[in-house]
Structure formats: C-alpha cells, structure tokens
C-alpha cells in the first residue's frame, strides 16, 4: 500500500472532520456571540453569571466535558448523539473562548459612535445589531481564526464517540496494516492542509468584506 493509497483511504474521513469542525465552530460563534452580547447589554448580575460561565468552560478540558456529555449524561437518562455531544463540549468551550474574543472586539468599537446612534433615536438592540456587531466581527477576525484552528485540532476527539472522521479511519487502517508511522504522518498532513484551507478561506472572506479603516 503506497503512501498515496493511504492518503486516499484516509480522505474518506475528511468530510466528517470538516463537518465536526464546522458544527463546533458555528456552535462556538453562536454561544460566544450570545454571551458577549448579553454581557454587553445585560444587567450586572447576569454579567457576573456569564463571567463564571466563561471561566468554567475555559478551565475544563475538552475531553472531560465530551465524556461528561456523551458517557455521563445517559446516567441521568439523557442520551446525546455523537455530533451533538461534540457541539455541546468542544463547541461550547470554543464559545467561552470566543466570548472573550468578542468582548475585546466590542471594546474596540468607538464609544462616540454608540452615543451618536443613541442620539439618533435607535434602540439599544438596534445599536447592537446595526453598529456594534458589524464592526466587532471585523475586529474579531484574527481571534476567530485562532479559535477555529483550535476547534479543528480538537476535532479528532470525535473518534472517541464513534464519529468516522480522519482519526477513526487512521486507527482502523493502522490496526489492519501495521503501518502506523506513515498513516499518522499522512493524517498530520491532511489536518495541516485543512488548516491551511480554513485560514486562507476565512482571510479571503475577510478581504471581500473589508472596509477601509476597520481591521482587527
């Protein structure tokens, strides 16, 4: 079996790897946006609660949270499908990190523009939607790329809950062919290519929506 054949064999799992990465990244963006928005416009007690949320989910290892959700929750009568378990663990943790990224990016929005929007008669929610979020997201691009990369790199944990991603393919292939070194080398190259694709893709998107004078 040539190295190329190994690569082709493993490529079968790429779809799942990308699916897990995208699903968890989107979960992260939704959770992170929700947390950052609520702590920007919510009452102080809620801010404290959200601060505790981000601290806890940034302190617990992904693997531990994944096992809590996938293997632990059935003890409480709650059975969670593998992909959802990944989203509730890796995705929510990414959300806690992204909430911090978004919080910092929100702080880069000029306070005088927010005041001007208030003086115009826009509601708090309109200001958030029309002024703060569009600017904040642009400031947050580098931080988001970092976090999406991290999600990609933790995505192989999906094999532990039975998702047939690249890692899972590699493990079964390695068990039958006993050529672990080449196989895992190939896996490394595949992840690196996905990583490059991801980073290039996000920057291309950023470039298309770039506005003079507004970069992160």
């Amino acid at each position: 079996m040539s190295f190329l054949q190994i690569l082709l064999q493993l490529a079968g799992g790429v779809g799942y790897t990308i699916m897990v990465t995208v699903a968890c990244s989107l979960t992260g963006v939704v959770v992170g946006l929700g947390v950052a928005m609520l702590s920007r416009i919510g009452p102080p007690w809620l801010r404290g609660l959200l601060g505790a949320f981000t601290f806890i989910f940034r302190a617990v290892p992904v693997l531990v949270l994944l096992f809590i959700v996938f293997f632990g929750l059935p003890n409480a009568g709650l059975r969670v499908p593998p992909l959802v378990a990944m989203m509730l663990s890796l995705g929510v943790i990414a959300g806690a990190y992204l909430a911090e990224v978004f919080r910092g990016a929100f702080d880069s929005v000029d306070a005088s523009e927010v005041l001007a929007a208030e003086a115009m008669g826009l509601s708090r929610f309109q200001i958030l939607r029309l002024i703060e979020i569009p600017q904040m997201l642009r400031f947050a691009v580098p931080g988001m790329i970092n976090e999406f990369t991290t999600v990609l790199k933790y995505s192989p944990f999906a094999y532990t809950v039975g998702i047939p991603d690249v890692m899972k393919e590699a493990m079964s292939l390695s068990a039958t062919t006993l050529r672990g070194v080449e196989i895992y080398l190939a896996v490394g190259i595949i992840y690196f290519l996905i990583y490059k694709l991801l980073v290039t893709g996000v920057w291309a998107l950023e470039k298309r929506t770039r506005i003079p004078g507004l970069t992160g």
Partner: protein
Amino acid sequence: MTLLSVQDLKLEYDGRIILDGVSFDLAQGELKVIMGPSGSGKSTLLRCLNRLATPTGGRVVFEGRDVLGPGVDERALRQRIGFVFQNFALYRHLTALQNVTLALRHLRRMPAAEADERALRQLARMDMQAHAHKYPAQLSGGQKQRVAIARALAMDPAVLFFDEPTSALDPLMSREVVNILHQLRDERVSMLCVTHDLYLARAAGGRVMFLDEGRIHAEGEVDELFGPNADPRVRAFFHQELRQAQTAQPIDAAQPMDQAQPAGPSGPAGLAER
C-alpha cells in the same frame, strides 16, 4: 415662536454641580451659540436636552412638550433633534451614504430606494454627493463633518445641535463650518451650537451665551458680549484663549490667524483690548 425653552436646568453628579440653573429660549429658525471654557458644562447641557444625560432639576419644553417628565418617548424625542458630534462619530463600517440612510431605513422604515434618494439630496446640500460611496476613513475631517451634518438633517429634525463643531478641524476648515452654519441659518434651520472657539462664536452671527461653571453669565449679540462692557469672566476666558492661540502660533506658522484672530484689529482681540 419658541421652539425650545430651558428653565433653571440643574445637574449634580457625584456631589459636583455641573449645571447650576441654566435658562434660555431658542426660537424657531434661530441660531444660538453657547460659548464657554472646557469643563463649563456646555456639552452636558446639550445632552440633557435630548436626554442623553439626566438633569437633577429644572424644566425643558421642546415643541410645547415637557421633555424631562415621565412617559416621554425618548427615542421619538431624539429623532426630532439632529445631533452633530465633536468628532463627527460617523459609523466607520458604513459609507457616507449609508451613514445618512441608516436612520431613514431603520427608524422611518423607508424603502431603500427612497432613503437613498433622500440621503443623496442631503449630501448634495452639503456638497458631498461625489463622496457618497466612500467610507469615513477615506474622508478628510471637513468632509466627515459635512456627512455628519447631512446625517443629522436627513430626518428633518426640528433643531440641529452642534457640539464643538470646529474642535477637531484645522482653522481653514473652521471657516467652512461657519459657511455651513450661515447656509443653514439662511434656510431657517433652528440651531444650537456649543463651542469654546472664539472665532466660531463670533463668526456664526447668532446670539451668544457665555456659560461657565454651570451658569450663564452673559448673553447678547456678539458685539455686546465681546464689547467694552463685557462680564469679567468673559474677559478672563477671552484672554486665556488668546494667549493659547498666540503661544500655539509659532509652532505652526501656517495656521496663525483663524483660531482667534489675535492680531487683527477687527477681530475679537481688538474688541477686547479696546
């Protein structure tokens, strides 16, 4: 006809008195300048009038309605008042045109085409139609100012508030601002302008009030206020501003004259020293 009436307005914050009983009226179509040193409470005064700040006492009647009472629709009030900020506060992620259409689209719920057409008219009024599709970062200070004014005018406000319109501009651009104020005054736009810029206060050509330490100490036509019988506080402010303008002079020889016209016999300096 009185458009805006301010009666004994007070604001205390953190034990400090910011506004100490300010009263004045603004008539329909009038341009009034509130002049005073920084920290005199003039920006806060403007913010009290559209409820961006909350006064602790007094009355504000705008278009016949009490503005400070309970049950006032703050957002509806603000839509009647165009506010031009010191640093322009253009939305950096929106083009000049989008800055102007934002309120039309999201507060008036106007269809895009209609909002664009109306915004372009306002930009044209400010001679900015050629720059409609540029972002704030691509505009000069004076151009940003014009867009900010067009943005405020687009909602057909009953009055326009200017907060230090010249402080972020070089002297040449300050003259432009005066021209714009004159243009709008000729169009019968009611305006309230807050500034510490002597040149602007003088050249604007409206009634001028002198605000210091939260109180109005003098009010009158420009020449009365700057004339020989001026209030001692006005004189003190005057001298201080002039000194600053003069010491700033050698550093940038290209812009000596405009800020306060220190040397010109017809300028405020001449009047003050007489």
